[in-house]
């Protein structure tokens, strides 16, 4: 009973979130519009400049590793964090029994 009640609440919340997101699409530029703000404000410069400035024909690589290289540093830090987290949680220390002091 409670379970279903909880699911109902989730369903309502999810529906509302989805409705809000779809409501937001109303004012969006059409899909694939080459003149949409996203395609015309910052990114053209990458396409036009990237080869001269970074000597890389692959613009995605140029942006990833140069213009926004700092994001990429963060990205590697994220992976590093995750690996250390997993290590931290799962490594067993000798001389300490698993589940010691726990139920």
């Amino acid at each position: 009973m409670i379970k279903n009640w909880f699911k109902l609440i989730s369903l309502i919340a999810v529906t509302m979130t989805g409705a809000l997101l779809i409501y937001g699409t109303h004012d969006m530029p059409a899909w694939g519009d080459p003149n949409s703000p996203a395609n015309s404000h910052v990114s053209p410069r990458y396409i036009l400049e990237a080869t001269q400035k970074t000597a890389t024909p692959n613009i995605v690589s140029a942006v990833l590793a140069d213009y926004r290289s700092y994001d990429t540093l963060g990205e590697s830090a994220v992976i590093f964090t995750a690996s250390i987290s997993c290590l931290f949680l799962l490594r067993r220390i000798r001389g300490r029994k698993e589940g010691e002091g726990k139920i």
Partner: protein
Amino acid sequence: MLEYILAKYNFWIYVILMMIGLYAMMGKRNLVKKLIGMNIFQTSIILFFVSIGVKAGDATVPILKGDGHGHGEHLIQVADYLNPLPHVLMLTAIVVSIATTGVALATLILIYKRYNTLEEDEIMAIRKDASSYKTQR
């Protein structure tokens, strides 16, 4: 009307996907299912982002044709190449999603070791017993 739907439908599909994932995260009682929901949610956001960068027409992947030093066969036209930025962002987001999944799986291992189950209701029941045992003591 049809034009409107054609202009928006793919955003809607991603939103629906997102909501499937979100519902799994909130409504499911099995922890692995929650995690799968999380992956669906994140993946659909990635798809959503990537679709922002699409340009209708002849646009192609943002790898320049030419010698790599700006002296291409023809002048670079912005409309010829897809918007590279969303792709870049999503490369990072994919990594983030994988990392989160990894840590979540690690906690799931801990949870399973401790409770021998991944059903939230059963875990709650076990914890309730444990705490009432503690207070009796």
